[in-house]
């Protein structure tokens, strides 16, 4: 029984923290987010070996995902991971097209139709489709297809979280190569990656908010000395640490304990999604007016937390999976 990361995992964490902090200072993040330029550091990430999911355990992926959230890096890496987890033989770069236009939020049902291996439908909020060679597309009947990006129409969408470029993908009889197998492990791993990103967002926002509460003075005292503020900070810490605990449990279980892995992944995504949103919301309140400005970076984290909570099943859907398992 040991809840600590191994030395190797800590090394990955340190590398990721340093690498991402150096490559993605706020100016770079803003340039990418506001100008819509693609991420310039993909080649360096490939050199680090991070896109190669087969070489890393789920815990190691979660470590990097947490740092992606912490740094708010606008990297297409999570989208590529998701594609590789669903389709391990994928060559080139990938992304996942899951949500159908007008979806009620159940990620397991799709209205995209299949006829003689040709797919028709409209997928929304597809991350980083501009740099993908292949899209993994979900379709009716729980079927999964690999579709060449050149066979679909990719249109930029207005993303709430501008640091993650989203696209609308139109399939009009696009030829698909059907994938086979059980996708359960992959989808739960993807949900845990999203949770890990939320953990990173929550941890970063908690830290910067506590720092601010120590510096900012009103009525002659640091605002963090008022319990209305300090208790809000304590709550942020509780939820951040709770989210981290449940997320690493899920990541570990996906690698080592198949009996509890899916339940753990649902718990992780539900809790971490809510935690990041709660933490970011509370952080905005503690920051007061300055946190509401475009100039301050807080809104970027706030939007990442909110958007991320709705990718790959939202907290409500994951909670229902937990209820279904227990009731």
């Amino acid at each position, binding site marked *: 029984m*040991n809840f600590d990361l191994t030395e190797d995992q800590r090394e990955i964490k340190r590398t990721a923290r340093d690498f991402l902090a150096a490559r993605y200072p706020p100016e770079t993040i803003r340039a990418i987010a506001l100008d819509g330029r693609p991420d310039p550091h993909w080649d360096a990430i490939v050199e680090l070996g991070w896109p190669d999911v087969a070489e890393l355990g789920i815990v190691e992926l979660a470590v990097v995902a947490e740092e992606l959230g912490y740094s708010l890096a606008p990297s297409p890496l999570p989208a590529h991971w998701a594609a590789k987890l669903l389709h391990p033989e994928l060559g080139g770069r990938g992304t996942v097209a899951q949500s159908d236009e007008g979806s009620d939020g159940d990620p397991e049902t799709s209205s995209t139709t299949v006829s003689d291996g040709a797919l028709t439908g409209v997928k929304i909020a597809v991350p980083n489709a501009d740099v993908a060679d292949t899209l993994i597309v979900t379709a009716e009947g729980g079927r999964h297809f690999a579709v060449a990006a050149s066979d679909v129409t990719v249109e930029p969408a207005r993303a709430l979280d501008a640091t993650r470029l989203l696209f609308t993908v139109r399939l009009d009889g696009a030829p698909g190569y059907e994938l086979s197998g059980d996708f359960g492990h992959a989808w739960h791993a993807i949900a845990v990656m999203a949770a890990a990103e939320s953990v990173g967002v929550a941890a970063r926002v908690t830290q910067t908010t506590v720092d601010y509460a120590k510096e900012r003075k009103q009525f002659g005292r640091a605002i963090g*000395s008022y319990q209305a503020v300090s208790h809000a900070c304590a709550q942020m810490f*509780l939820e951040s640490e*709770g989210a981290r*605990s449940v997320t690493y*449990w899920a990541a570990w279980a996906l690698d080592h304990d198949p009996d509890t892995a899916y339940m753990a992944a649902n718990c992780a995504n539900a809790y971490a999604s809510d935690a990041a949103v709660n933490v970011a919301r509370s952080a905005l309140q503690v920051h007061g007016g300055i946190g509401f400005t475009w100039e301050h970076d807080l809104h970027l984290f706030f939007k990442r937390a909110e958007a991320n909570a709705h990718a790959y099943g939202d907290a409500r859907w994951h909670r229902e999976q937990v209820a279904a398992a227990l009731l």
Partner: protein
Amino acid sequence: MDLTLSPAEEEFRDTLRAWIAENHPGREPEGDEASFQFRRDWQRKLNERGWAGLTWPTEYGGAGATQIEQAILFEEFARSRAPQMANVLGLTMGGPTVIAHGTDAQKERFLAPILSAEEMWCQGFSEPESGSDLASLKTRAVLQGDEYVVTGQKVWTTFAHRSKWCMLLARTNQDAPKHRGLTYFLMDMEQPGVEVRPLVQITGEAEFNELFIEDARIPVENVVGGVDNGWRVAITTLMHERAGLAFALQARVQVALSELADELKGTTDPVIRQRFAQIAIEANVLRLLAYRGLTTAMKSGEPGPEGSLGKWMWADINQALTTLAMDVKGPSAQLVDDKWTYRFLRARANSIEGGTTEILKNIVAERVLGLPRG
């Protein structure tokens, strides 16, 4: 990272599980006296096996087990719905305090009767005027010859009516700052200067007592950890209590959760399903925080902030759980039942007893996050 048990821990769990299956005393009888005897018998049985003081060093009658084995014991107890041991405060607070801060003579005198439940222990910390601000307490101990004469009032003293010894925090120095004038005593409850009155709580039961102390006598050799050093002694005890407690509490939440799940099986109400799932998820988070706390405690030798987080979170979860159980009862919620009514009422104290949630938030804000004191 490795969340599996080692082969030795698995063996301990299997041995324990088999032993409980063979020795489980069945359902606890109703009534204060009967239930007390039942729990005392259970503790004695465990003590014969060396498990009453599982983590105590073997030289003091314990099993010298690890915190993880302690956690396994709590989980197996909860799983099998085994009764609690009678002398819970002696086992989790009094004994560990004597082991950590006591003299050899104190260890010789006090430890064995705690394990055998021969002498019960209670805790005299809180006072009517000193709840969260514990260090402001007013009970006075004045040295006269080779004994202290104590006068004051204590409240929320669980098990006082059955106890032989009271872990008493009293002021020995009126001039020192409030945290530095307190001493930790072991007070004999069986003397004329100590009066115990039951305190009836909102459940209608009298689980707690008030303690009226007038010219009670405590010999100097019953000071633990040095005169005027009582705050430090009490705080280490409280921290250890919270770290270990988080585990026991989470195990009990898992049991209550499975009972509630049995009652809610098949419900289609999405609101109820969502609320139940949220509680189940948070119960998992609590369990994992407790595991992380164990990792911290085993590496550093000191309980980490997880103890405070766990106790705080447990209170929230248990209140939410018992509230949900009431909410699904329909009109029969107006009537007292033999299960949830008591738990629903009792849970209100969870965010007050053993450190209010507000105090725990202060601890996290000040000691973990480094925010300035208000």
